[in-house]
């Protein structure tokens, strides 16, 4: 008896390469349950994509997308944007000299001023961006070269930054705060904007430097380490500044809410860009009142403290002034894409209608009549 049950087992064992369900003894002489699922007869909706059923969808997409696209396109066109390249590649460019002889350790900053004029006034808030080209912030070595727990105020990480920060982890035996290649290469040009009044005076335009980073970054993800004293410099005691920085991290700004790791310029820089040509929000020019435009038309001067070298890797630096709509900055792509897709769908709808009329109905009619 034992062996007979054994032999069944053994056989099962040897077939175990693909153990079929119900192969065992217990499945025998048992009638399968007559449930809808087991009999594969669950009630079901059985849609079929035919010209007839797809037609309305195409027309709806067409009719929906074209207006949206036009709306987006118009919105995008209404956005005013001014872009100026101040890299200083040409001899004629005002920043040529600065770009030629830069040095990280020079105590005397190089300044240059670029004049430009706006043909149209910029209404509402104006956003000031700096743009970099040919700058690979998304390089793998670069992207991972940071320590998020250090930036989150973790004291251990402050003193012993992550290995990922190499070779920007330690300097002169002291841990670097903030460590890593990203922080080390913080964009450190200072841009100032002057309005050249027709009467000859230059007015400094007030640039707001908060609100440029994600709220969550500023308040949750980035945090200054909490030390004994309230003084930030005490907390960062025992760390050193990144190699390329001229200041310590606690000297970035005088405002304690914008200093240290929660300095918004740092936070913005730390969010690595997706593509090698990118822009980052630098300052916001807030609207003063209803009466005057934020930036009236006229001549302006951009005063650049030129610290950031890009010519070694053929990079470019730009300053962008832009207004913002609900859909962000000037980007005609979405509008055009919507209009195109809408039109294509509409066109295809017409084609399908013809096909449906000629073929679909014919074959279906033939089905029924014959």
């Amino acid at each position, binding site marked *: 008896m034992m062996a007979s049950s054994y032999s069944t087992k*053994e056989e099962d*064992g040897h077939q175990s390469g693909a153990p079929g369900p*119900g192969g065992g003894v217990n499945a025998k002489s048992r009638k*399968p349950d007559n449930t809808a699922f087991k009999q594969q007869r669950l009630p079901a909706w059985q849609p079929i994509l*035919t010209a007839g059923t797809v037609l309305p969808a195409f027309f709806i997409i067409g009719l929906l997308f074209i207006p949206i696209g036009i709306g987006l396109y118009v919105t995008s066109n209404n956005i005013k944007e001014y872009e100026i390249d101040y890299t200083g590649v040409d001899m004629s460019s005002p920043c040529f000299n600065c770009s030629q002889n830069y040095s990280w350790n020079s105590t005397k900053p190089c300044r240059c001023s670029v004049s430009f004029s706006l043909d149209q006034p910029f209404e509402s808030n104006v956003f000031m961006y700096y743009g970099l080209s040919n700058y690979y912030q998304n390089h793998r*070595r670069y992207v991972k070269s940071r320590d998020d727990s250090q930036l989150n105020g973790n004291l251990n990480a402050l003193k012993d930054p992550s290995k990922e920060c190499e070779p920007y982890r330690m300097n002169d035996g002291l841990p670097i705060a903030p460590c890593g290649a990203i922080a080390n290469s913080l964009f450190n040009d200072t841009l100032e904007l002057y309005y050249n009044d027709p009467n000859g005076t230059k007015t400094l335009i007030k640039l707001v430097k908060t609100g440029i980073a994600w709220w969550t970054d500023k308040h949750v993800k980035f945090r200054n380490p909490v030390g004994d004293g309230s003084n930030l410099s005490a907390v960062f005691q025992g760390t050193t500044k990144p190699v390329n920085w001229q200041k310590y991290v606690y000297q970035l700004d005088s405002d304690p809410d914008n200093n240290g790791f929660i300095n918004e310029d740092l936070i913005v820089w730390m969010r690595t860009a997706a593509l090698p040509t990118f822009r980052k929000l630098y300052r916001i020019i807030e609207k003063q009142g209803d009466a005057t435009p934020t930036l009236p038309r006229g001549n302006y001067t951009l005063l650049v403290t030129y610290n950031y070298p890009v010519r070694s890797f053929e990079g470019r630096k730009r300053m962008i002034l832009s207004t913002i709509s609900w*859909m962000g900055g000037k980007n005609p792509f979405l509008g055009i894409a919507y209009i195109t897709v809408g039109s294509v769908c509409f066109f295809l709808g017409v084609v*399908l209608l013809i096909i449906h009329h000629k073929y679909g109905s014919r074959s279906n009619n033939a089905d029924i009549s014959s």
Partner: protein
Amino acid sequence: MDFSALRNLISRYCTGEENWVDSRTVYIGHREPPPGTEAYIPQRFPDNRIVSSKYTFWNFVPKNLFEQFRRVANFYFLIIFLVQLIIDTPTSPVTSGLPLFFVITVTAIKQGYEDWLRHKADNAVNQCPVHIIQHGKVVRKQSRKLRVGDVVLVKEDETFPSDLILLSTSRDDGTCFVTTASLDGESSHKTYYAVQDTKSFNTEKEVDMLRATIECEQPQPDLYKFVGRINIYQDRDEPIARPLGSENLLLRGATLKNTEFVYAVAIYTGMESKMALNYQSKSQKRSAVEKSMNAFLVVYLCILISKALINTTLKYVWQSNPNRDEPWYNGKTDHERQRHVMIRAFTDFLAFMVLFNYIIPVSMYVTVEMQKFLGSYFITWDDEMFDEELGEGALVNTSDLNEELGQVEYVFTDKTGTLTENNMEFIECCVDGHVYVPHAICNGQILSGSSGIDMIDSSPGPDGKEREELFFRALCLCHTVQVKEEETVDGIKRGIHQGKATSFYISSSPDEVALVEGMKRLGFTYLRLKDNHMEILNREDEVERFELLEVLNFDSVRRRMSVIVRSSSGHLYLFCKGADSSIFPRVISGKVDRVRARVEHNAVEGLRTLCVAYKALSQEEYHNMCQLLDSAKLALQDRDRKLAEAYDLIERDLVLLGATAVEDRLQEKAADTIESLHKAGMKVWVLTGDKMETAAATCYASKLFRRSTQILELTTKRTEEQSLHDVLFELGRTVLRQHDSLTHDTFSGLSSEFQDYGLIIDGATLSAVMKPAQDDSSGNYREIFLEICRNCSAVLCCRMAPLQKAQIVKLIKASKEHPITLAVGDGANDVSMILEAHVGIGIMGKEGRQAARNSDYAIPKFKHLKKMLLVHGHYYYIRIAELVQYFFYKNVCFIFPQFLYQFFCGFSQQPLYDTAYLTLYNISFTSLPILLYSLIEQHISMDILKRDPSLYRDIAKNCLLRWRIFIYWTFLGLFDSMVFFFGAYFLFDNTTFTSNGQIFGNWTFGTLVFTVLVFTVTLKLALDTHYWTWINHFVVWGSLLFYVVFSLLWGGVIWPFLNYQRMYYVFVQMLSSGPAWLGIGLLVIISLLPDVLKKVLCRALWPTSTERIQNAQKLYQSHRSEFTPLPLLNSSRLDFEAHNVNPRRSGHRSKELMYTHWRGSIGYCTFSSTLGPPGIGRMHRLVGLETSV
């Protein structure tokens, strides 16, 4: 003597084990034979321990891991994982390690559990007690301690602990009954015989006195073959040698029945027992889908490697400028700088490989396995394939071949028991041309109109009477039927309730039972076999006793059996019963012509006929025969051949007595099933051992051949007249001429009535065709034969030996189109063909379960084949095809954006997506919908598939996994991934798309692409789904929701265990921007558009018949109120056959043709209920053979 032993010894050690086809010598009870006899070389035998487990506690982990990593896919993933561990790669090792670990662990647990069960079973068996005779006493021992040579006592209902030679039994005649149900599934009782000289031993003491040795062959796996010799030493004389055959060998695993106890000696123990030798794993069958899957895999591997190579090359081209390689803002560590450039390039290559490795996902293997495993439950669950009578439904032995059921092109079916019920009924017998019909059936429906029927009462003259009684006695004596008196035997019951005792007949052949029962109705009752005497109750209620002297057993080569009996009056007779073809040539007198006419008449009617002949023997003749037989039986080598020769000498110069006819009714719906299979484009071949006429009649009845079918004959009869060469060429010409004109006809639109051919070939001719070439022409024969077969819709192969069946299957399998073959059969003789075919289907028939056990799928009845193939096979195929294509598609979509991203990140292997997304994409975000799809998708409803078998042609030839379709899917994937990537690229293009002017980074970019990806890929599947149950809705929308919820959660918390927080609030920030929403919607629609368009256009302009049926079904559902029978719309199948091109899409020209077809000829109504199963009338019987050509 000594010299030969020495030579033996030398040769044994010199030739090595593979040539060691030596015999073994067993000392019964370990007693040395008397001195002076042959010197034997003692051999070491294994103990009786059975080890079926693969692993031990200690080697489980290493051995199991080794086994698992021997699979190429697992090994590939292991390599990727190791690369990730060793070098600095873009993604963390977790991304590939976790899924791999999961898969390996689950498999290991499963295998470990199975092995544990095996260990338990092994232990139970190895420790179960056996009774061994030692020094005249019975000793209980553990089974594993049993050794070769031990004498064992086995009691009723016990299982034999090893392979034993039967010494004696509790029954006086030295027989015992055994059921081998656990070995070959035959539950009938088989009789085994004790050795003549020892059968009288009844006590332990007596057994202990025995001094004997057994010489036998070394163990071999064939259960039914055994050759040995026992030498019994009595006194000091020369030993008495007795032959041992399989009738003396009790097999391990079989159970003793109806016998109180037996004494037997162990000869093969443990792993050497025939049972253990038989459980070697069968060769793994692989489905066509799996093969194309592997081919696709190779393509993707090539894509992967070339992607990595391209990127590595471009990286170094791009980096040739040192300011690009290492700009001031992005310095390398000293360690990195110092590394050799070749090493750097190599690690870069590996890193790219790792980055793109998701293109071949682990999860595909897991999903395919799960799909096959879970999906096969639908077969076992199927109510329609459940047989009330048997109480069993379909069985799935391998789930690897589910989809192959949808690809079958050739069906090879057995006749008896498969097409027919194998429920034999005695119809009539014919003695010297006088026909006798038993009373019971007289008033039944079978009173065919043929003339010349003599009833039993109208007896011919006294001379005829004598012949008639001899005939009846012959049938009563010439068989191997056993009589069972009890009712409670779990054998096949054939109870005939007599007045006095309830007894019934048992035999391995139902024909014999039918004959003996038929004789009973004609007045001659076989009572029993007692003390070697057969007892017959004749018409006058007298018991006649015949001494059974010899039985010349039936075998399929001779196709006859004989007995030699001595009547009570001392006359010796040889009765022989067998197929007409084997009897007629051996007959020297008797009314051959009249019997032959009757036999042929019966055969045409589809009855199984046997001829009976006899020979009266003189004492001297008998003596010679005995000597012949004994010498043959005693031979140790070539015994089979010698026996056959002896039989041949004995069974000749017979006198023909008459013939019998037994009916084997067609199985329910067999004709309907065959018709459906034909319509589904399958070629059905019947392979049978029956004679041509019977088989042909069955074929007509089962609609394999129709009235219009032109029959081509390739039989010995014809080849006797003409040479094989001529016949073949003539047939070939006929078929090909038709083929050409057919192609021609199709274009003129008149081909609806084309001739179809049926071929009949017999075993002898087949072996002539198949005979290996002496010159080159023979190979040619084979080709011509194949060519003929290809053009025949039905082929009947009769007079087939089991191995020939397998040969035929092999021949077709190896022909140049490599068609998918299916073999279906119910008996042990079909096993070879079942194992040979791509898909083997066993019918749980009356001839035991051997076929069912060896098959891939087992079904209760032949009719279930229809649903199995047309519905389940079709579904499984489209499901798995979509599964495979979709998996590759979704991974192209997944990985190609990463590849494109490398061009924008300085070829730095920066991953586009976050680690969590990389890991979970295949595991959770997109895994369940496709799994569910591949389990429950039904593109057409089950009823339509059954009603319209021609839909099966739509998926023939693995058409959903053709390269063209594969390339379409791949390009669709490429297009979609381009849309995802460049859509996001232009959206991000140097601007912002938030309303507060803030900027998004690279992770937002990746998340945007990923979101579009997940939605597109899921919706693409949703568009492909034709069968939306609530589960589909739940899973599809659920997995999208899961993605969103997961993303919210993943980005919503600063995860303490992570060393980076790059995803923090990325997803929410992205969703806070209007253009992101608009962009996602737009990109999803753009990605789906081409596929939708392609589907709609193809459906409208070049619909396949599946699609037409779908349309029609839809219309039908909407117009259900009015009765509008929709005609079958797929006359296009004519085009398929004519062009022999891709049947899925026909060209424009044939399209026009199709329209004319629909209008012109309407095949049958698809939706009308009038299409019931055509009745299987007896009229088919009367269809004669149309033998032209």
